[in-house]
């Protein structure tokens, strides 16, 4: 038993099912989006911040936000972005743009893809998108009750 002829790898697999509850606040956001093509957020009565996606509490003031709803205008600005040029498993083929967007004057940003930008020439695309660029929300025709029931494109005059 002197040499080590081979090192073994033991195969394993996780297969975990989950059922996440959106709760009352999250459910209302999704239902408004799906049924009424509206983006709603919660607003803290104390600090005045508008939270999108809506949360049931304000983490800063530590008060409940239940019932403190506001509707947001479906347009905003691009606040941060990247152009993905590498393949990530189970994601769409590159290139594509992911950004964080500030919608309708909310105090927080939401993640989404930025559609409607020609990515055939990445260098040119870089010069056509910028932090603070105005964007608008387009609601999909077929809405299924998901955070991706709308998409975001540059707002061009």
């Amino acid at each position, binding site marked *: 038993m002197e040499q080590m002829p081979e090192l073994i790898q*033991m195969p394993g697999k996780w*297969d975990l*099912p989950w059922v*996440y509850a959106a709760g009352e606040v*999250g459910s209302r956001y999704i239902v408004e989006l799906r049924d009424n093509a509206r983006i709603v957020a919660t607003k803290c009565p104390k600090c005045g911040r508008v939270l999108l996606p809506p949360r049931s509490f304000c983490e800063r003031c*530590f008060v409940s936000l239940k019932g403190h709803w506001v509707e947001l205008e479906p347009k905003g600005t691009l606040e941060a972005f990247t152009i993905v040029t590498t393949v990530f498993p189970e994601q769409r083929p590159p290139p594509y743009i992911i950004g964080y967007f500030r919608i309708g004057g909310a105090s927080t940003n939401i993640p989404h893809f930025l559609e409607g930008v020609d990515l055939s020439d990445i260098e040119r695309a870089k010069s056509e998108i910028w932090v603070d660029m105005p964007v608008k929300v387009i609601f999909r025709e077929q809405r299924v009750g998901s955070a991706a029931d709308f998409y975001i494109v540059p707002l061009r005059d």
Partner: protein
Amino acid sequence: MDDKVAVIGVSQTKYEAAKRKQDLYEMIFEAASGALNDAGIKIGDVDSVVLAAHDLIDGRSITSMLTATPAGAYRKDEIRLGEDGAFAVALAWLRLLSGEFNASLVVSWSKLSEGDFDVITSLNFDPMFYRPFGFNYVIAHALQAASYMSRYGLTEAQAARIVVKNRAHAVNNPLAHLQQAVTVDDVLRSRLLAWPLKELDLPPKSDGACAIVLATEERAKRARDGCAWIKGVGWANDTYYLGDKELWELPSLALAAKRAYRMAGIENPLEQLDVAEIYDISSFHELMEYEALGFCKPGESGRLVDQGITSMKGQLPVNPSGGALSSHPYTAVGLIRVAEAALQVMGRAEGHQLPGVTTALAHGASGMCCQSSCVVILSK
């Protein structure tokens, strides 16, 4: 450790099978903000937050990324343990003793309705030697229960009496998940899962959260509704492989208790404790825990339960809240035990309050088969 740190506020959500109207975050916020209210302090008064949560139980790969802020962590010095909630009490206590902090939120939760508990706990076992045999929470604890039974000639009916006792206690706890009393026959006739464990020998799967506020001496003495002083804390870890253990013993608990007792000056726990809230991993485990906690000699737990010594009217009532056999938001169980023990000491346990409680014990456990245990002694 006399009168240095105390529990000054406690809050629990209702425990139930599936909270659909609350997402995980709102459930946590309810407990954390409730504990602040209970302590009569504001979030600004808190300078430490200690959480206990498991990624796989929460179905979030680094759960505290999403669960820390509903627990009050925004801009706070916060830390998260991957342990049972009682360990979070231990760490918060150390932090307060270090002189760096004055008041700490301690929060723990589980929403077992969102995942598959049996599959999740099967992943606790090492992939080479144990996982191929399909061990999980139920099966591992069944193996341990069987081993204990055979060692001491205990009967399934004696274990069933633990279930009867704890479920009867839960009738008086409005927050309990299972609030119906059961009989020995109900337990014995419930579905056999892995011999000797039947469905009613095991805890339910619950959603719920618990939070407490711990504070240093100066702040605790000003507490509105009294407080429960931490007199002793001990925790210990045992070996991992089930095959390395004398399965009928719980060495981590015996060690943890020894350390906590020494600190609290407890020599005869049966005499000196007024109440114990312990993690009844299964009915058999509550019996094993009596022995590890020194309530009786090894193998004598059956007598304790037969004589009703640990029921509400007995010498040392155990789990007046109904224990984990009535409410089981897994990760939070140990913190709930501390919260319930504190309520007993403060005289605020309402329907399940015991008369004249001066000293209470709480116990939490992490890992499979009580690999790690934490014991907290609270006093007036």
